[in-house]
């Protein structure tokens, strides 16, 4: 039973990380109908920035709490800046192009960013500093749920609540929902759609950066390639929940995280990634609109 609970919590942890990334996919897709292939790379850059900042600060002898806060802020700031810039360079000029053009551009951007980090930094796996200490109160259940897992779950829940608040009640959130429903109509009622799209990219990237920071401290090592797999898995989660739907992305991520965790725990860890891809292929074949998504009919 302990093993089951351990797998359950490890699945929840995975799922929350996927959720943080999947939200970026789903929000961007909801607004401009683009699969932002470079989103995984944003998350990787978030992890790298926090790694660099945290290591520099720890070498210069800063206290742990300051390191965590500054590294977190740096990751969010830089990832959002990257998200913003990528949208301006690679997607904005293609807003009225055929469907495949922005997708190819996004794939190019993803390859570009991977190799940019590879060339500027290194291809080796880098050890990520321990940012989250073992809490003493977690001692009795530490063999089932680690302190890092707890932090990830708590942070994810806090971030989700904040995001829900932003989308439901703030002006920019309302503008985002309006743009997602009908872009032309949103323009007509005086919403600056370009700003809304930029804001969506910034929010999505900030969430991915938080995910990057958390998973890097959970796994303990990073390299330039982590974004690819994480991106695909988060995309799977977003599609599973119904792309474009925010609660769907969270639900899909948790399901994917639990599936992976139980499958690797009870079946085989060699095929860890195969399960995610199989799930993706199966969903797209049998229910392309996802669990909470709306099936849209093509209009002529």
């Amino acid at each position, binding site marked *: 039973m302990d093993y089951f609970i351990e797998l359950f919590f490890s699945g929840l942890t995975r799922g929350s990380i996927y959720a943080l990334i999947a939200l970026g996919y789903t929000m961007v897709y909801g607004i401009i109908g683009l*699969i932002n292939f470079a989103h995984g790379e944003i998350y990787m*850059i978030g992890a*790298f*920035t926090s790694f*660099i*900042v945290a*290591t*520099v600060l720890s*070498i210069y002898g800063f206290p742990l709490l300051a390191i965590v806060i500054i590294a977190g802020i*740096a990751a969010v700031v*830089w990832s959002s*800046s*990257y998200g913003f*810039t990528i949208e301006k*360079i*690679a997607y904005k*000029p*293609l807003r009225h*192009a*055929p*469907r*495949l*053009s922005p*997708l*190819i*551009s996004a*794939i*190019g*951007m993803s*390859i*570009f*960013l*991977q*190799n*940019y*980090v*590879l*060339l*500027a*930094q290194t291809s080796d796996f*880098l*050890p990520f*500093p321990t940012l989250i200490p073992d809490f003493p109160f977690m001692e009795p259940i530490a063999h089932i749920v680690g302190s890092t897992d707890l932090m990830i779950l708590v942070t994810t829940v806090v971030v989700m609540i904040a995001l829900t608040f932003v989308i439901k009640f703030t002006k920019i959130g309302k503008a985002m929902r309006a743009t997602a429903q009908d872009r032309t109509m949103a323009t007509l009622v005086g919403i600056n759609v370009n700003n809304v799209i930029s804001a969506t990219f910034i929010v999505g990237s900030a969430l991915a950066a938080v995910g990057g920071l958390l998973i890097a401290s959970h796994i303990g090592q990073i390299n330039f390639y982590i974004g690819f797999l994480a991106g*695909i898995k988060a*995309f*799977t989660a977003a*599609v599973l929940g119904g792309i474009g739907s925010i609660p769907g992305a969270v639900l899909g991520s948790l399901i994917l995280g639990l599936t992976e965790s139980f499958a690797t725990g009870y079946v085989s860890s*060699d*095929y860890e*990634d*195969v399960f995610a*891809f*199989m799930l*993706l*292929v199966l969903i*797209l*074949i049998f229910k*392309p609109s996802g669990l909470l998504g709306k099936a849209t009919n*093509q209009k*002529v």
Partner: protein
Amino acid sequence: MFSLKELKKGLLTSLWFVFLTFPIVVIKVDPIARTVVWRWENVAYMAIGTFLVYFLVRFIQYRRENRPKPAAAREKTGSIVHRILQNPTQRVFLVAVVATIAVFFPHVLSSYQTNVMTTALMYVVLGLGLNIVVGMAGLLDLGFVAFYAVGAYTYSLLNLHYGLGFWTILPVGGLMAAFFGVMLGFPVLRLRGDYLAIVTLGFGEIIRLILENWGEFSKGPSGISNISRPSFFGIELGLEQSIIYTYYLMVIFVVITIFIVNRLQDSRLGRAWIALREDEIACQAMGIDKRKTKLVAFSLGAFWAGIMGVMFAAKTTFVNPSSFTFLESAIILAIVVLGGMGSIIGVIFGALILILMPEYLRALSEYRMLAFGGILVCMMVFRPQGLISNIRRTYTFEKKLPKN
């Protein structure tokens, strides 16, 4: 265009990029030795680089906006390559020159050069295969390399276990890949374009992961070695001769592929693909079976990839799963996009440029993938039709202007 305002914007842009790239480009930490290297010189490179790129982009935009009107008329006659190809005497001359170069290439240059050229020609064929799927039928296939892997492993495994030769397996490998194409295509081809891209990507990764992890079947990451090279009418050739022989085989493959793809383009099927790419609903209304037409495109592309997979295994005599990563698919896609989607001559040029350039500019080879990514973005933004765009067959009739 070189106003003060532009200058200010350029400076701001380069400042923004300096900020953006600061942590990754400037700071380099060694977490084990606990040292920090501040590479301040990179700030200067970044600043100057982005400043120049900004003005280059502005210049291109400026020229595009102020281009004289007859541009549209020039587009129709096509680029210089098309003009040569349309003129019969020039075309014969061009073909003769290319054929002479192709025939004498391995005798003049070293076997290393021949090997490189063979690889480039393989990418030409792969590019043309993917061109059927992406360029003509408009289906973005990101798992093309999976079919390549199927071909390569079909040959390697059958050669290893049953000692079957290259020529026996060549069609088998192609058909096997086409079979996988149908198996995958049947359920997923009804999906919309971008979903299809992700599913094919997932499929490509599944194939690679299975090859990597199913040790008893595929020998896992260590791969299969000592695969026999193609034999010449039952005669085993030495290494040197074999390289030349493989080269000529590839030349023949390229010629056959160009011929078939060219014929396909003008066939009923090819026109159906192009129509599907342009507008699915209108196309269905015209009575074209959408699923069947797509499936044929998908499996034909896979067939070509499978054949090239067999060729690849026979050429390198060694296969392992790391040859079939997503990046390989991305390279082939970059070839098609750079050359011009749907354009045969463009794809050939694209493959030769992208494969030969990093080979001969060794200093730049580490920037290869960076450039591939950049090319995909830049081509989509600035020249979505590719270097040598496909000219649409158009029928025009000169309207006589009424005199008044």
